[in-house]
């Protein structure tokens, strides 16, 4: 609980309209897409870095937790106020401050919706590639904090690759600027990269300088259906060894697709074990050829059917299948344990077959899909939490899956972050020394441990 005095001071900082403490409001800021709930004591809606700075200084003085929050679409509980305190919602800081068409950069506030930013730059013939499936509702601030990626990562990289500089309010309230507006810049340590992916534990991002690209002239989207899962997984590396880097190469297994209503509408074969959604972009003449090459590779390596979208509308329908998977899995079982592993591309077949074996051994329903092009697979184990045995089994299975992934040279989280849900497994991947270094960094920046406590690793 916050004392009335603290609430009064916070009210003084942001104004009466921009602090909420009613039960109804607290409930609405208690959850994210992990479907877990922790009530905060207050929600703040600051409008600039100064207000955030004052709030954080107060938090240090009074010792209450502060948790930054974008759209609350996170998959690892990063924005959940697990120890109560104040949620700082960045919903109001949602302006695109500048799009520089000469230097191909932009400056945005953290609450800008990723998709809206993409459309704004596309109107100017520019391109911001990072495309998490949640792009229509997640915020760029949240993307920076999680280093979000998406299907286009295979060709264009992830959020990290587009963040040139930041304005950050440190946990102690000081405001710093990191990075540069120029492509090159080596003065001092790279604090920008440190902040990207720090899950709201090292500072609250209040401004972001982003790199832009010219918009590719055209895209071509296709969907290939494979009766055999291993064939589909193998085809992923075959496409790349044919010297084409698609802008998207997504994998979906049968269980994933079974939940998506849109699939049946495409009229594609239901006799399939896996789908690949593939997109190429660039010069329109070139991609026409590339699409044909990819189609041939797919058919050569076991695809039963390949559908190339005729127009934008058809492409959108194919994409809709992919985007709808994640949330619709709830049709299999009410609760989802959602892992986000990455393995080297060539190891995808091994990983998927291994994961399937493990799930089978534990008698669990498992659905796999994801950004196969960069080896990032979303492993979903569907359970009913009320069934305690099943939940315990799932826990065991996750550990085995992580072990498998690490054994073949992978990592346990590609883009969703650790937050609170992956905390127990960090030690499997990072050595004690590595964790200690990270904790020391946290300690230096946030000596009182007030910013987003209870995340990533057990707090100092």
């Amino acid at each position, binding site marked *: 609980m916050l004392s009335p005095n603290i609430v009064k001071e916070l009210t003084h900082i942001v104004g009466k309209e921009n602090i909420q403490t*009613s*039960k*109804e*409001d607290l*409930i*609405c*800021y*208690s*959850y*994210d*897409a992990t*479907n877990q709930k922790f009530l905060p004591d207050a929600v703040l*809606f600051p409008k600039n870095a100064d207000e955030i700075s004052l709030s954080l200084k107060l938090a240090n003085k009074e010792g209450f937790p502060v948790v930054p929050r974008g*759209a*609350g*679409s996170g998959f690892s509980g990063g924005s959940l106020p697990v120890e109560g305190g104040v949620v700082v*919602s960045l*919903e*109001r800081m*949602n302006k695109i401050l500048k799009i520089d068409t000469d230097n191909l950069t932009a400056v945005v506030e953290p609450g800008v*919706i990723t*998709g809206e930013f993409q459309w704004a730059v596309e109107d100017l013939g520019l391109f911001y590639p990072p495309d998490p499936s*949640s792009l*229509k*509702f*997640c915020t760029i601030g949240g993307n920076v904090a999680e280093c979000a990626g998406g299907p286009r990562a295979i060709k264009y990289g992830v959020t990290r690759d587009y963040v040139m500089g930041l304005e950050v309010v440190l946990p102690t309230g000081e405001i710093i600027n990191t990075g540069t507006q120029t492509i090159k810049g080596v003065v001092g340590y790279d604090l920008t990269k440190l902040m990207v992916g720090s899950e709201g534990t090292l500072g609250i991002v209040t401004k972001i300088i982003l790199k832009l690209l010219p918009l590719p002239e055209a895209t071509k989207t296709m969907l290939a259906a494979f009766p055999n899962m291993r064939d589909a997984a193998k085809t992923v590396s075959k496409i790349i060894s044919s010297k084409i880097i698609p802008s998207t190469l997504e994998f979906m297994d049968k269980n994933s697709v079974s939940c*998506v*209503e849109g699939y049946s509408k495409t009229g594609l074969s239901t006799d399939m074990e896996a789908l690949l959604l593939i997109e190429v972009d660039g010069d329109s003449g070139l991609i026409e050829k590339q699409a044909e090459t990819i189609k041939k590779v797919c058919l050569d390596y076991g695809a039963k059917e390949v559908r190339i979208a005729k127009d934008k509308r058809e492409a959108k329908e194919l994409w809709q299948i992919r*985007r*709808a998977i*994640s*949330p*619709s899995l*709830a*049709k299999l079982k*009410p609760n*989802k344990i959602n892992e986000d592993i990455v393995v080297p591309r060539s190891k995808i077949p091994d990983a998927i077959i291994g994961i399937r074996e493990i799930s089978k051994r534990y008698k669990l329903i498992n659905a796999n899909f994801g950004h196969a092009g960069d080896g990032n697979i979303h492993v979903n184990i569907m359970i009913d939490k009320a069934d305690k045995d099943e939940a315990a089994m799932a826990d065991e299975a996750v550990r085995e899956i992580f072990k498998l992934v690490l054994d073949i040279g992978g990592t346990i989280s590609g883009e969703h972050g650790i937050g609170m849900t992956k905390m127990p497994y960090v030690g499997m991947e990072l050595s004690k020394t590595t964790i200690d270094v990270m904790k020391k960094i946290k300690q230096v920046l946030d000596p009182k441990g007030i910013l987003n406590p209870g995340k990533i690793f057990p707090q100092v």
Partner: protein
Amino acid sequence: MKTLEQFSQEINKCVLCGTCRSVCPTFGVVQREPASARGKVALCSAFLHNEISLSEGFIKQMNECVQCMACHKACPNDVNVPDIILAARAEIAKEKGLPLAKSFILKNILDSERIMPIAMKFISKLQGLLFKGVPEESGLHRRFPLPLIDERRVVPPLAEKFFLEVRSQGPASAGFKQGSEVRSKKNTLQPRVGFFAGCLINYMLPNIGEASLKVLEKAGASVIAPLDQLCCGMPALGMGDVETAKSLALKNLEVFEQYELDYITTACSTCGDGLKRRFKELLSDEGDDIQKRVEIFAGKVRDITELLVNELEFKDLNAPISDSGLLTPNSIVTYHDPCHLRRGQGIADEPRELIEMSGAKLKEMEHPCRCCGLGGSFNITNYEFSMAINRSKAEDIKNTGADIVATACPGCMIQIKDGLHQLGADTKVVHVIELLAFHLASPLTGED
């Protein structure tokens, strides 16, 4: 009608993913979670788990929804958020009663024995005193403070004579009243179509009713409009007054059952959605006999655009396309998809086909399916909010440069007209059916 309690499984289907934030118009304006569909589901869940009561905050959030169904359409788990919210409103109305303004509208206007109650007649006569006209516009501004009407608001005047009233007073030979119904001139034509007028067409935009009769007849149907028909009950349901909605559904059912009809049609998307879908839900606990009857009734209901294109296979207007006046082959028309037609009834192509049949050029706006912000009585209780939602619609329309915006719902028309007026745009607002009737020598609503 399912209670909120009975929706708990539906509520549990929500995984709090946030997808609906991207389409919810109330969230779009407020930009805070409680205004979003996800926030509202979370609040209903908290209420069912006794974490909150029917508090003021809860009631406010349940009221601030325009029932546009965009969230339901976008939801990957098919969570029917608008219906959950309706059930919450019913719970609120049951426990707390209806607020004064709402019960006034219901008792005096909507729940009356006939669709032309005395109260409305009275207001119609008095409106010259209450409102002043806006130059070159068919809207009115109020002169004196009225409890339900915002000062800046431009509303169409109540019709001098209501649609069913006019129709009930002419000679039978010209397609007017015969006994307790209105019949079209050629009343031996097949199929036989019952016309459900709806309050807005009856009271405010009778032109649409006239146009509908004309076009239906041209398309080869005989039309019967029972004079005893009532409000469809959807405004009552939207306010949480299930009992009123139910009794209206039952009475309407009885009225239309008196005629041998092949179809029942309406030119109001909200009425149509209600007749097709809600009557069944409202009467679901009324015993087998009524359920069977309402099933048959609902099976006959078609939106007028749907009826013309799909059932009457109306392909050709068979009339000279006028090349002067408001609508010529050079006119550019843009189309707004009413929520209750597009998402409620899945109808999108039919009205567009009819626009093209009228000879005009169809030019799509950027977001034709975005809600106009009316949301039934939401527009009355939350006028400013409602117009804030409308803003992007009005701008979208203006950006097309179209001469005319056509839609298929009188509610949307009134809202859009107000929004365009506030934006200073002079785009005419008409019903799709009026575009066709124009060539059959009917005036356009946007013109008079």
